[in-house]
């Protein structure tokens, strides 16, 4: 086959695949703006913002978004902080247990944490941490920590040690070095870690569903499931609008981090979806 034909075929195939991938999303966009949305992909007869209005005029929905953002941002901040601190000794010092520790960390990233939700529920029951935003944040932080430590250590390995040595000679303490020398240079890595962690908890609906009960404390992910779980009586328009708004932070963060993402995909910094 001639090279040109092959190339054309490749272009066509890619276009077809791209269209197939974008169709469900197109439905989401159209349905959100459609006064009479249903399951089919169609150009709205009536373009409207009514769906968005009905979603955001409900105090419950707005609160859900607010709570969800608070949970995810707090959790991500905690994770970045803890993993950043933990990465320093792992990256800089020669510790005998380092290899074993890193292997354990790697091992932990693989465990499907959904399997331990029952003991967590029982544990929280005993220490009265159920229906508590802080309890939820701490658990989400702990489960995101192994992967974050792995990421941060790898990023930190990429920061040259000479600058630190200069600072140490001038009498800086370890914490000061981390704060003033390493973190600024590691900004791309911090962003990647923050975003991965944020997306993980923002999209998590099962853990809040089990650990929280007050309607007021439910984040947007659970609210979305509640509306969606109505199945037979779904109001597709408002649901699509809600989903779009809900997906927005994930999309925004991703776009913001595009530059930094590529560094995370080589083998050495192997990351998880």
């Amino acid at each position, binding site marked *: 086959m001639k090279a040109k034909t092959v190339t054309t075929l490749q272009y066509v195939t890619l276009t077809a695949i791209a269209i197939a991938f974008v169709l469900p999303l197109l439905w989401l966009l159209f349905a959100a703006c459609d006064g009479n949305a249903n399951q089919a992909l169609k150009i709205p007869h009536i373009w409207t913002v009514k769906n968005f209005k009905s979603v955001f005029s409900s105090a419950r929905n707005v*609160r859900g978004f*607010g*709570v969800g953002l*608070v*949970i995810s*941002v*707090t959790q991500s*901040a*905690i994770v*970045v*902080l803890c993993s950043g601190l933990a990465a320093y000794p792992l990256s800089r010092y020669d510790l005998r247990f380092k290899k074993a520790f890193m292997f354990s960390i790697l091992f932990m990233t693989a465990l499907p944490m959904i399997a331990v939700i029952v003991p967590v*529920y029982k544990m929280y*029951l005993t220490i*009265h941490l*159920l*229906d*508590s*935003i802080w309890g939820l944040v701490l658990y989400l932080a702990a489960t995101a920590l192994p992967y974050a430590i792995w990421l941060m250590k790898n990023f930190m390995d990429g920061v040259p040690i000479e600058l630190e040595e200069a600072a140490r000679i001038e009498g800086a303490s370890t*914490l000061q070095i*981390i*704060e*003033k020398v390493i*973190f*600024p240079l590691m900004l791309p890595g911090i962003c990647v870690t923050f975003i991965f962690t944020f997306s993980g908890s923002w999209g998590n609906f099962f853990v809040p569903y*089990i650990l929280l*009960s*007050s*309607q*007021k*404390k439910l984040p947007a992910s659970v609210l979305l499931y*509640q509306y969606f*779980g*109505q*199945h*037979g*009586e779904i109001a597709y328009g408002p649901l699509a609008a809600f989903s779009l708004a809900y997906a927005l932070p994930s999309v925004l963060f991703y776009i913001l981090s595009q530059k930094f993402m590529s560094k995370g995909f080589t083998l050495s910094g192997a990351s998880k979806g």
Partner: protein
Amino acid sequence: MKKLLLLVVASIFAMGQTFAQGTQEQTPQKPTITVCYRDAGLGEQETMYKWIKSAYDKWDKKDQVNLDIAPITASEGDYFTKIALQLADSKTCPDLVDEDTFQLPNDVEAGYLSNLDDLVKTYDDWQNGKYYGTMKQVVTYKGSVYGIPYCTDTRGLWYDRQILQDAGVIKAGEEWQPASWADVFSACEKVKANRPDVVPFWCNVGVATGEATSMQTYEMLLYGTGERLLDQNGKWIVSSKGMRDTLQFLQDVYVNKGYGPSLDLVLNGQAANTAFRQYFPAHKLAIALDGCWKCGNWKATGPAPVADYEHIFGFAKMPTQTGNNGGSITLSGGNAFSIPENADQKQWAFEFLKQLMDPEGGYLDSIIAQGNICTRTDILDVPQYANQPYFRLATKLLETAAFRPQNDQYPSVSTCIQTMVESVVSGTSIQDAIDQYGKDVTRIVGASNVVSLT
């Protein structure tokens, strides 16, 4: 940099606390009673919400106590799970909880519910016979009272008169009363032949519709064969002719003869609402096997009002398999309000409960809006209640009603029933489904508590 991060975390925490606490309009000294029930998606339009709110507004003690209406939005199946999760924890526990009476033995054994014996001693209406004896029985377990029943119900066949007339099943002005399962099938066949644009038969068969599948469908059929769930020795029957016939009926409706709606309509949590709020009003459904309270949907105050509904729709007794054993069968259940063991405002909760159950306090209006059968004897003859369409028949059915076993294993076994039913209508063979049911139930109750008849 780190200071900045800490500042960010601190301010988020502060924001978070405000969000997490929510806005509490109460003053710190007043106690708050929390009421929990299942919200099926209508929020403030739910009958329960309206009842609780109006009862509170009319309450003479409302200045002393705050009210927090905290429903759980979930499908019926998920509701029981979430309630169980909540009742265990004293922090998240409501003060009043809407319990389906079949859950009572289970929850009492788990230590989740308060014994109300002392409280009902001071409750005049309870002591003076204002509650039906059978209803008091239903909420009594091992000799003690664990809830105040607020409704009961019966089940039967709802039908669209015009469609059945068009199909030649009944003549104009006639009531339809099938005498056996064969009659029901022949009506479906006629509808299918003469009105192919409508769904002939609808009944709950999904796991998502939870107890509705077990009670309105499976048990209505099984009990109609003359069998029960337990044998005389209290053992669970895991294989029998009655079971096979019941599952055959369902497989015929949904798979073999195509009388039922498509599976995507019926295997979700909203199936019953789809049938009664969409299909019936649009005259796209001929017959549905469900509870007597479903007509509450069509009232002017309901979610899908239909003018003149008592002449458009009819209610018939569900026949037994062959017309023996009394000719018709119904199961009766009911809901009650219970006070959880871990609640912190038990005294106030009971006071409010008395208000809720007061006919003047809101009970009369609510029981009518619910479309359920009342549990109080003083409501029975109030014209507003008694003259509701279908009520004479529905209440008459109570006389021969059967009840679910008062066994604390029932809720778990019920979920196995639902799985069995859903498998069968999705194409699994009846024998496989029964085998699986046998294994599941054995695992829950132990091999010494099951028996196979045939």
